[in-house]
């Protein structure tokens, strides 16, 4: 058992290493940190640019192999290098990970729950008006670009706030700057800030999950075991939930794990629009700043997340489905 677990972990490590190295090499050969400095006004002297680049291990005059070796040595010891503004990549990433996690966690979980419920209703009322309505709305949301959805939500929020006469739902940043008060006051403030961005994530997630759940549910609707449950005297509703939905949830576990993994690597638009300084915002900004080390760290982060999602999805699948458990 231990040996097999070890083999799987080794397998993962190889994949992560490969992805990260390729990510670094791509970033290091295509981004140009020198330009970032050279474009400053007034242009700094070349010597000082070189000195800074050397210090950050970003000098394009140094052979790529040497830069890579230097970077790799750091990574092995847990040091992901410096950002182009000479701060620690690891520290920055640690801070931003928390921001994205707070943003994504509620959005995906509530989105999945709402989506599963909508998909269930849609399936058991197939081709009825409620199914058509849910289908129409979910496609509407799915085909609306995230930034448009977010902007629409902002407009709606403004209306609500105006109607309420106070900033009931703030929609920029994570907290109100300069807030004073106890921890409870801070918690409520964070909660208020969370509502609108979470809603923008939730809508997309719910739309997506409702489509998958609907088709998974339709697959089991005609299943013999639901007929069996009904034949023992169970009413339609309980039979559909206890026997139908319970079984149709199994494929959702995989979807949820991967969605969560994907979103954690950065909900770029949402973060940008609502002023949350998370991973997605960082990734885009890093590319703009020609920040090789930050981009490489982002690739590492993504690789780790995807593989964890895979592992979690297997575990969730095994928990939900006794047939694959042993």
């Amino acid at each position, binding site marked *: *058992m231990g040996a*097999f*677990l070890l083999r*799987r972990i080794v397998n993962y490590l190889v994949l992560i290493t490969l992805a990260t190295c390729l990510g670094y090499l791509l970033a290091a050969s295509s981004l140009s940190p020198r330009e970032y400095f050279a474009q400053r006004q007034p242009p700094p002297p070349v010597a000082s640019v070189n000195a800074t680049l050397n210090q950050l291990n970003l000098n394009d005059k140094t052979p790529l192999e040497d830069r890579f070796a230097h970077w790799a040595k750091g990574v092995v010891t847990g040091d992901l290098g410096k950002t182009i503004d000479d701060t620690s990549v690891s520290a920055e990433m640690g801070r931003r990970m928390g921001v994205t996690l707070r943003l994504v966690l509620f959005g995906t979980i509530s989105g999945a729950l709402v989506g599963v419920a909508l998909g269930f209703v849609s399936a058991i009322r197939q081709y009825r008006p409620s199914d058509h309505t849910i289908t129409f709305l979910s496609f509407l949301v799915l085909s609306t670009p995230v930034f448009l959805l977010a902007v629409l939500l902002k407009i709606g929020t403004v209306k609500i706030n105006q109607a309420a006469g106070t900033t009931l739902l703030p929609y920029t940043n994570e907290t109100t700057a300069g807030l004073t008060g106890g921890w409870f006051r801070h918690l409520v403030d964070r909660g208020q800030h969370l509502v609108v961005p979470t809603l923008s994530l939730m809508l997309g997630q719910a739309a997506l999950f409702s489509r998958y759940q609907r088709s998974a549910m339709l697959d089991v609707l005609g*299943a*013999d*075991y*639901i*007929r*069996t*449950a*009904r*034949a*023992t*005297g*169970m*009413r*339609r509703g309980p039979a559909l939930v*206890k*026997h139908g939905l*319970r*079984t149709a949830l*199994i494929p959702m576990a995989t979807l949820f794990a991967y969605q969560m993994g994907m979103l954690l690597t950065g909900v770029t638009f949402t973060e940008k629009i609502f002023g949350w300084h998370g991973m997605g915002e960082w990734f885009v900004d890093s590319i703009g700043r020609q920040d090789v080390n930050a981009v490489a760290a982002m690739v590492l982060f993504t690789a780790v997340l995807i593989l964890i999602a895979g*592992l979690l999805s*297997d*575990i969730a*699948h*095994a928990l*939900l*489905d*006794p*047939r*694959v*458990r*042993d």
Partner: protein
Amino acid sequence: MSDDAVLEVTDLHVSFPGEKGRPLAAVRGLSYQVRRGETLAIVGESGSGKSVSSMAAIGLLPTNAKVTGSVRFRGRELLGLNDKEMSRIRGAGIAMVFQDPLSALTPVYRVGEAIAAAIRVHQDVTSQAAMKRAVELLELVGIPDPARRALAFPHEFSGGMRQRVMIAMAIANDPDVIIADEPTTALDVTVQAQILEVLATAKQATGAAIVLITHDLGVVAGFADRAAVMYAGRPVETAAVQELFAAPKMPYTAGLLGSLPRLDAGRGVRLRSIPGAPPSLAELGAGCPFAPRCAFAVDLCRTTEPELLEIGQGRAAACHRTGEGLDLMAGPNGDSGLTDQASGIPDTADTEPEATSDAEGVEGALAEPEAPTKSEAAAVAAPVGVAEPVLTVRDLIKHHPLTKGSIIRRRIGTVRAVDGVSLDIPAGTTLALVGESGSGKTTTVMEILRLRTPQGGSISVLGQDLEALNRGRGVRRRAQPVRAGIAAVFQDPLASLDPRLPVGDLLAEPLRTHGHGKTAGRVRELLEMVGLEASHANRFPREFSGGQRQRVAIARALALEPRLVVLDEPVSALDVSVRAGILNLLGDLQRELGLAYLFVSHDLAVVRHVADRVAVLNLGRIVEYGDADSVFEDPRHPYTRALLSAVPVPDPVVERQRERIVLPGDPPSPVVLDGDAEALRGCRFRSRCPLYAALEKPEARELCESTDPALTPVGDADRSAACHHLDAWVPALVQSGTVA
């Protein structure tokens, strides 16, 4: 209504919305009643309305079904009750046992939970009390170690064990009526015998009436008190079972009985097939729906549908000619003009009206067995016994690794699917492989069809050793003629024919693959050979009935003039009335073309009908091998005896008198876990062997425990069996009526 009838169905009609707004009538006027402790069988083929009528009785049809008539349960009208009221009756008053218990149990709940849930739907008890009762019920239906097995999931049970769980669920609330819908259809014969006994136990324990829905007349003969035969949504004959089998009064019933291959009949007897196929409900005309297939039909039959009329005490039949005293079992008078079998093969005439694309080609309308025809005579002259073998298999072995775990996969044992099988098939003869599921039948066949070097042992096809064939260069080119010489027909013709190709292309494909240029003529010839029309070449597989599709599959197999045809359960998926036509066709083709057949089937009655020689497989080994007549008439290995004894005979008199050996337990699994040396020691059948259990001398038992019996010759040269105690005298091996 009679006072003690618990379920009374009167003039039940069920229809579904069809295409173009025309309703499809699935059930048209069914009436029956059952009393407590009585078993009523509803017999019919697919589309006869037998299952729909039972779903209508418990109100579980889709909401678009229109149900009229009356269903009274203990005097209370059920039609028109709402879901809440119906739910109180379902499970508690009327319980169901469904076919295919794998899909009928929710995969994510433990079987104990499932039974406990069924109890708690109707009874206000704690979950502990319900679980305790569930364990008792599992014990009642014969699940060994019920307290532990109650915690297992459905997928950890075998088919037979799952069906026992279904029965336990059905009797959990002490119902008055149990409706069993094809309860043994997906099961092995040995398991079928067990399940029927469990059902009998359940009936005893609850005193319930049983409505047994089935297509298997053998099951009816042994189990039911009365029977209603349904055809095209209507009951066409009702009678006490004894009378029904002794003297059927409706030509359809007679045809069904005549078309059954029987274990107690000899080999090669021509089956009396019913021409055509059961009608599609959308195409019912004004006349008797059976008229197009009926050898006794007169003009009246084609214009007016007969009523189901009482013709005696508890007997009714729907036939215009009931009163005329026709001998239905003997076949029609010579002048009825519908017999077309005089020419042997091919089954040429296809008299189906163009409108009914569903109808089957004429397959010999209730034809009597004919005197040997030209082709038969030719076959008799052919030297069968001395022919060179077209297939020789020696000590074939196929083992798979068994792995476990989804997150972490590891090897825990070996599936010994085929574990030393040796066979010979001389040209022009039929060898049947029989055995329960998991015995290695299909694996053996697949190893032969792959034409690859076997994992162990040797296979020689058409004199070409596969090991030699796969050595060296140009294997594909050299394998081509061997590939052409061996063909296969599988169980489900719809699944094995590409739905996007018209039949003509399907038949031309093997010809083109093997570089034959002009195919049109050969395609026509093939279609005619299997009793279809040349014009059928433009149709798609879905436009044919099941029997016709299987004919297409046979034609495709014959395209390259093979010498060996592997038939893997070729009639198992077909309706009873259509099977006989396919079996007759296969017999005719064999005589005409000198084909050798490797016939795989779990249906021993079918094997009895077709096989020259038979090999009985158990756990990947042959336990008995030899001439079919001799094996069937005098089985020597205890496993063969048990298998044969488990097959129900479609004759209530015989069926109720004969001694039966019920094998305990499930068909064993061919899995041997790593490090389990004990599993490989001694005779592998001994855990279920009634003979071993009856042996008295310790040294005799010791022999079974220590030594694996080899296949040794028995009696005449052509027979062999693998048992240490072939000569042991054992009276009744196991009492009939013991539930394992």
